[in-house]
């Protein structure tokens, strides 16, 4: 597969451009911080995105394995799911890879007539977007679940302990049968 070789050769520049376009979703001050600060604890968002898009790219070259892609996507999407983004904005970064490849490798793709291979690779990106959507929903559902449980947990022990709750005992059905 010629395209794969081309992508590998241009890995660094593609990842750099991909990161740049992802960071465009943040304001200019934020973008500069996310890009520049290289300490992973001072800048977990920038460093995570930068590291994990490399892993995603590697995975895509090998195919689309949801079991492998999902945890990598999770590390990026989990962050964007709690930031000021709509669902589409949160996972748009997946599709941005298409534009980056087309722009960076435009000449080579045309000269080597790789458009069929490109279409195939782009469909892998589409598949990855679907997985990203599942991951996004999982994260959002988790937030709602945590919010719902929070209220419950805060006072449940108190109510239980104060004897204000009378739950059905586990052995009741058995008792009914015998009586």
């Amino acid at each position, binding site marked *: 597969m010629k395209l794969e070789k081309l992508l590998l050769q241009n890995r660094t520049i593609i990842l750099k451009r991909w990161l740049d376009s992802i960071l465009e979703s943040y*304001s200019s001050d934020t973008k500069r*911080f996310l890009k520049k600060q290289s300490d992973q604890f001072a800048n977990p968002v920038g460093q995570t995105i930068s590291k994990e898009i490399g892993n995603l790219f590697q995975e895509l070259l090998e195919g689309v394995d949801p079991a492998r892609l999902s945890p990598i996507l999770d590390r990026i999407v989990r962050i964007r799911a709690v930031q000021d983004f709509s669902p589409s904005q949160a996972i748009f970064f997946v599709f941005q890879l298409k534009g980056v490849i087309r722009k960076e490798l435009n000449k080579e793709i045309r000269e080597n007539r790789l458009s069929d291979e490109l279409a195939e690779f782009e469909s892998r990106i589409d598949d990855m977007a679907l997985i990203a959507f599942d991951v996004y929903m999982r994260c959002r559902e988790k937030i709602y679940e945590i919010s719902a449980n929070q209220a419950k947990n805060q006072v449940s022990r108190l109510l239980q302990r104060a004897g204000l709750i009378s739950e059905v005992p586990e052995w009741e059905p058995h008792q009914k049968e015998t009586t």
Partner: protein
Amino acid sequence: MSDVPKPEELAKVDHTSPLITGWMNSPVEIKKGVACYAGKPKNLEYVGLPNPREWSPLDEDWKLPDNWKEIILDGLRERLERFRSLKIFMDICVRCGACADKCHFFIGGGDPRNMPVLRAELLRSIYRREYTTAGKIMGKFAGARDLTVDVLKEWWYYFFQCTECRRCSVFCPYGIDTAEITIIGRELLNLVGLNIDWISAPVANCYRTGNHLGIQPHAYKDMLDFFVDDIEEITGVKMEPSFNRKGAEILFITPSGDVFADPGTYTCMGYIMLFHYLQKMGLDITWSTYASEGGNFGYFTSHEMAKRLNAKMYAEAKRLGVKWILGGECGHMWRVINQYMDTFNGPADFLEEPVSPITGTKFENAKGTKMVHIIEFTADLIKHNKLKLDPSRNDNLKVTFHDSCNPARGMGLLEEPRYVIKNVCNNFYEMPENTIRELTFCCGGGAGLNAGEDMELRMRGGLPRANAVKHVHEKYGVNMLACICAIDRAVFPDLMQYWIPEVGVIGVHEMIGNALILEGEKERTTDLRSEPLHGMEEVEEAEEVKKEEKVEENKDV
């Protein structure tokens, strides 16, 4: 002199201060998941806070009083005269940007208005417009702007996105404390009835019943009695904590979260066990069902409200005639005690300088307030070899420690908790150094932001802390995040669930409860959570089977 950089080296320093331009022109959009609910009128009325009414931050009309602008500007003028620090903080910032990328909300969320410098600019821009010549004449060119309803909404949105953790202030070359700016900002907002439910309800409850949830004295005592039963089941030892006992030497006050919400409840069991252990050695301590809250959400409302709630603890100490106060594991409670109490309600002349009845140690740092943090008290006991401990009972835990913002940055409790942890457990791992001690990252839910409706905000604010926990989880297999703050114990379980579900949350005194070897105790098979101890899994399983068989027998009877 070899460490001093050469001029050409200095010239290479690549520093760009934040742009912070353009922000004035983009109006704020109040979002669900970030904004908290508004305070309910009944709670405001109960403590006499202004403008009680039903309102929602998501509505266009916030039902402000007609003269709101006058109230705010008068309020600001009055505070600039009262607090010299505020005037200085308004004037001296040079926008160097050292604080800009130090806030957990900015790091995790990316909203530039959460850069501390910009959050302060929200207030500073009005200060310039009203009180500086340059601002009056040159307006926006001098970083000044008019106070409008939109500005007020922006204040509300962002001053309730600051946990007053003070991490940014550690980096400010001028020592500007952005937390104090948030405190004043919230105080001004409260003058026109802008607040959040998760603060105003606890304030009203605390004022009325003595704790955030409004738990009445008998329920408070019931809870502790249940813990006593649990402890007896686990250790075989019956304990008898005393309540509201006049003439006791020491009054113990802890955040109500320890009494009513897991996992704080296990920390509370740890306190009960420690006090029982020390009783024979001369500890004379009482709990109070009236001063049943160590936390002080008044501090997130106004200085006056903080003072009123703080006074309740001292009034109870006076009523009971104790000599000094021992306080539980809490965060902002200690900031209030350590930095404000003396001028709020001090000097507490009717109390004595705290002295440990067990070791004789004088807590000179608490000479003014007469109140000692339990982690100092316990560290002192261990240092003097007064506690028999079996750290192996915490062997199922791989622990890391979160420095809670207020005890760490507000009063320098850095070594004591570590010293205690290392004595009660065998597996302790530090998080990366730029995330601990003075540089600790906030839990994301302090200063009244641990509500349920702002979960997105909490998850992004807690991201830098969670990221460091994740690191030690992956590197060392850490499965427990220890802390000495009740808000941490309420906030972290949610945060961990989202970012690293494999990690639990524990108070340091829960680990003490596990490790403490009590006189006459049976062989322990479980920890305070009734989970099998390391190596006791089979024994515990057999016990469970026995219990189940007994239940079956009873049913048949």
